[in-house]
C-alpha cells in the first residue's frame, strides 16, 4: 500500500475545498469570490420586519424582500449600483471622519494582526486594513481622480455584485470593537468603516434578522425582546421574590413613577435571561441598600441600542426614547446599568444626535454628594461609577467573604473600555467585593479582546464563527484559569454575559460568567436580612 506523500497531503489539506474533491483553486485569495455556507453567515432579515421598519417615522429601510446569501441572485433592486454610489457620496459629505479614514491609511500594517477575527481565522480579509480596503477600493475607483484615471493601478476596483457580497460577509465579521484603532497611528476607526458598509447594504435591502428584529421590537415596545409593560414588570417582580427567598428582604420596585429622582435603564436581557438575572438582582439589592429614590420604566425598558449596528437614523431614534421617558417622568438624571453599546452611543454619538439633555440635571449622587461632571452633557451615570463612588465614601456595608466561592478575573467589554474609558471603576469595585486577578496585559483595558459576538453577531446560527473569533479572549481566560484557579469571568455588558457564557462553555467549561453588580449584590449586608449560608451567592437554589 502506498503511503501518501507529505506534498500530496499538503495540497489537499491546504488548498482543496475538500480531500474528497481534490479541486485546487488557481487564483489569488483576493480574487476569490466569497462563499456563503451554513454556519458562516447570519440569517437575512425577514421581509415583514424590514417593511415594518421602513414604514416607521424617521427610519429608512427600503427594498424589503425574501433573499438568501446562499443563492446566486440576491434580488437587488435594478438600480443597486446607483443607490450605493449615491449613498456613499452622501455619507462622504455628511461624515467628515469617513472621508479622512478613506484617504489617510498608509497601509503600515500596524492594525493587521490586532483583530480577533483575523487571529481566530487566519483569513487575510479579516485584517482591519483589508476590511477597510473593501470599501476604500470602491471609494478610490469612483471618488478619486487617480482611481478614475488609473482604476486598478491606483488601488481602485469596480463596484460589482461580488463586492457587495464581500461587504456582507466581512462587515458581519467585524464586531465594531475598535481594538484595531488603538494601534493605528492615524486613529483610523475600522469600526466606523464597517458601520458604513452595513448602512450602504441596508439601502439595497441587505441586513440580518438578529439585528433588525430587536430594532423593530425596541421601536415598538421599547425593548429587544418585544416584552410588553406587564411582562417586563412581572419579570422584575419575580426577581424581587427570589431576593426575598434568599435574604428575607422584601423589595418593591416602582415602575414609570413620575417625580422619582432617578430613572434606571438597563439591558432587557438583565431582567429575563441568565446569567443577567443575577446582575439585575444585584441592582435591586444595591438600590434598596442605599434607599435611593428611583424608578424603572417599562417603556425605556432597554439599554441596548441595536440601531447602532444598522444605521445612524435607527440609533438616534432608539437613543431618543430613553430621554423622552426621562422627560416624561420628570426625573433629575439617569443611572445606566451594565450594558456595552448603550454607552458607546451615549459617549460617542448622543450629543450630536439628541443631546445635550439640558432638561435634566448633572448627575449628583444623593448619598455622597459627588457630582459626575463627566456626564454633564448626557446626564447619565454608569452603575459602576456610581457604585465605586459609594464604596469610596463608605456607604456600603460589604462582607467580601460572601464571595469566597468566587475567584474572578475581569473582562473589559469593548464599548465601556474603548468607547467610554471605563477602566478603573469596575476594578475598584472588584478589589472591595471579591478575590480577583488580571488577565495578561495585552488582552485587557484599552487592548481588551472582544467576546467575538458583539454588534448583533450573538446569534446561534454562526456559533462556530463566534467561537473562533472569541478564541483570543478565551485563550487569555484559560491562562488565568490554569495559573490562578480562576472560576468566574466578570464583565459589565449584557451581550457579554450571554455570549461569554457560550464562549466559556466551549473553550473553558469550568469558568462561569457574571456581572459586577452580581458580585456587589452577593456581598451586601442588608439591614434586617435573614439570610442563611448562600454557598453560591445569589445563584444559590433555595426551596
Amino acid at each position, binding site marked *: 500500500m502506498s*503511503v501518501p506523500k507529505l506534498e500530496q497531503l499538503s495540497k489537499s489539506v491546504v488548498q482543496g475545498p475538500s480531500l474528497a474533491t481534490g479541486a485546487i483553486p488557481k487564483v489569488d*485569495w483576493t480574487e476569490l469570490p466569497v462563499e456563503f455556507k451554513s454556519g458562516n453567515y447570519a440569517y437575512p432579515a425577514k421581509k415583514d420586519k424590514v417593511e415594518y421598519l421602513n414604514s416607521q417615522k424617521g427610519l429608512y429601510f427600503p427594498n424589503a424582500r425574501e433573499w438568501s446569501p446562499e443563492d446566486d441572485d440576491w434580488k437587488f433592486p435594478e438600480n443597486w449600483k446607483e443607490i450605493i454610489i449615491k449613498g456613499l457620496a452622501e455619507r462622504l459629505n455628511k461624515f467628515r471622519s469617513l472621508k479622512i479614514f478613506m484617504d489617510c491609511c498608509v497601509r503600515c500594517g500596524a492594525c493587521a494582526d490586532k483583530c480577533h477575527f483575523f487571529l*481566530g481565522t487566519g483569513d487575510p480579509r479579516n485584517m482591519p486594513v483589508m476590511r477597510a480596503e473593501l470599501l476604500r477600493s470602491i471609494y478610490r475607483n469612483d471618488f478619486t481622480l487617480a482611481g478614475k484615471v488609473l482604476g486598478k493601478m491606483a488601488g481602485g476596483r469596480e463596484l460589482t455584485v461580488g463586492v457587495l457580497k464581500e461587504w456582507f460577509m466581512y462587515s458581519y465579521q467585524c464586531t465594531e470593537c475598535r481594538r484595531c484603532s488603538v494601534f493605528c497611528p492615524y486613529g483610523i476607526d475600522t469600526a466606523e468603516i464597517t458601520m458604513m458598509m452595513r448602512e450602504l447594504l441596508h439601502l439595497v435591502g441587505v441586513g440580518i434578522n438578529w439585528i433588525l*428584529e430587536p430594532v423593530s*421590537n425596541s421601536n415598538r415596545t421599547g425593548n429587544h425582546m418585544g416584552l410588553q409593560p406587564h411582562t417586563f414588570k412581572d419579570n422584575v417582580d419575580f426577581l424581587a421574590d427570589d431576593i426575598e427567598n434568599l435574604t428575607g428582604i422584601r423589595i418593591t420596585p416602582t415602575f414609570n413613577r413620575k417625580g422619582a429622582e432617578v430613572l434606571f435603564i438597563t439591558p432587557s436581557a438583565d431582567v429575563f435571561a441568565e446569567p443577567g438575572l443575577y446582575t439585575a438582582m444585584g441592582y435591586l439589592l444595591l438600590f434598596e441598600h442605599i434607599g435611593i429614590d428611583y424608578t424603572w420604566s417599562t417603556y425605556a425598558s432597554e439599554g441596548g441600542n441595536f440601531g447602532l449596528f444598522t444605521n445612524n437614523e435607527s440609533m438616534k431614534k432608539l437613543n431618543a426614547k430613553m430621554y423622552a421617558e426621562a422627560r416624561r417622568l420628570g426625573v433629575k438624571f439617569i443611572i445606566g446599568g451594565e450594558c456595552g453599546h448603550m454607552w458607546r452611543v451615549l459617549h460617542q454619538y448622543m450629543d450630536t444626535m439628541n443631546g445635550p439633555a439640558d432638561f435634566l440635571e448633572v448627575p449628583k449622587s444623593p448619598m455622597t454628594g459627588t457630582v459626575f461632571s463627566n456626564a454633564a452633557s448626557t446626564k447619565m451615570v454608569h452603575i459602576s461609577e456610581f457604585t465605586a463612588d459609594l464604596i469610596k465614601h463608605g456607604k456600603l456595608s460589604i462582607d467580601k467573604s460572601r464571595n469566597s466561592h468566587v475567584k474572578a478575573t475581569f473582562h473589559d467589554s469593548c464599548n465601556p473600555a474603548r468607547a467610554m474609558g471605563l477602566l478603573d471603576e469596575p476594578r475598584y469595585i472588584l478589589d472591595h467585593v471579591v478575590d480577583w486577578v488580571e488577565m495578561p496585559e495585552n488582552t485587557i483595558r484599552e487592548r481588551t479582546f472582544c467576546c467575538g459576538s458583539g454588534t448583533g453577531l450573538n446569534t446561534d446560527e454562526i456559533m462556530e464563527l463566534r467561537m473562533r473569533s472569541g478564541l483570543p479572549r478565551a485563550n487569555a481566560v484559560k491562562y488565568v484559569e490554569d495559573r490562578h484557579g480562576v472560576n468566574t469571568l466578570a464583565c459589565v455588558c449584557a451581550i457579554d454575559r450571554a455570549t461569554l457564557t457560550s464562549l466559556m462553555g466551549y473553550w473553558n467549561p469550568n469558568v462561569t460568567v457574571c456581572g459586577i453588580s452580581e458580585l456587589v449584590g452577593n456581598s451586601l449586608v442588608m439591614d434586617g436580612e435573614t439570610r442563611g449560608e448562600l454557598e453560591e451567592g445569589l445563584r444559590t437554589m433555595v426551596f
Partner: protein
Amino acid sequence: MTLEEALRNNRYKIVDRWVAYTLTTYEASSFFLKEKDAFANPIGATVRDALKKLFALLMQDAESEQLKEPLSRMMHLRSVQDFSPAQAVAPLNAVKHITREVLAADKETAPLTAELYDFEFRVDLAMLAAFDLYVACREKIYQLRIDEIKSGKHTLTDGGCPSQALKNIAGTKG
C-alpha cells in the same frame, strides 16, 4: 543509536516542521509562525504547545488518556475553523511523514526508519482519537446553540418556540 534516542535527538526539528506544516493550512500562516507572544497569536501558540506535548507522548508508549488533552486542544481549534472534518484532522498524520523524512535524511538514523512501525501505529491511534474529539466538539457547538435558544433568547426571533428553532438548526437555512 536506538530509535528512541534518534527521536529524542531530533524532537525539536520534527516538532518545528510539524508545527510549520500545520500552520500552512491557514492562509495567514507566516504570521502564525512568526509571532511568539501567546496572547497576540493564540492559534500559533496553541498549535505549538499542543504538538510539542503530543510528540513527547508519541515518542513513549503513552496511554491514550494522556493524548487526549493536547489532541482535544487541537480539535477545539480546528473544528470551529473553516475545515472539512478530514482537513481538520489531517495535519496530525503529517508527523509520520516528517519523522520518516528527518530520520532518512541522516545516514546514521536512516536505517532506523525500518523500525518506525510502532511509532506510526501510535500516530494512527491518535488520529482515530482525534476524530472522536472532533465530533465531540461539533456536538458541543450544537449543544451551545440549543442552550442559547432555551435560555430565552428565542423570543428575539420569529422562530417563536424552541422546537421551531431546533428545526432551523437541523436545516441549512433559517
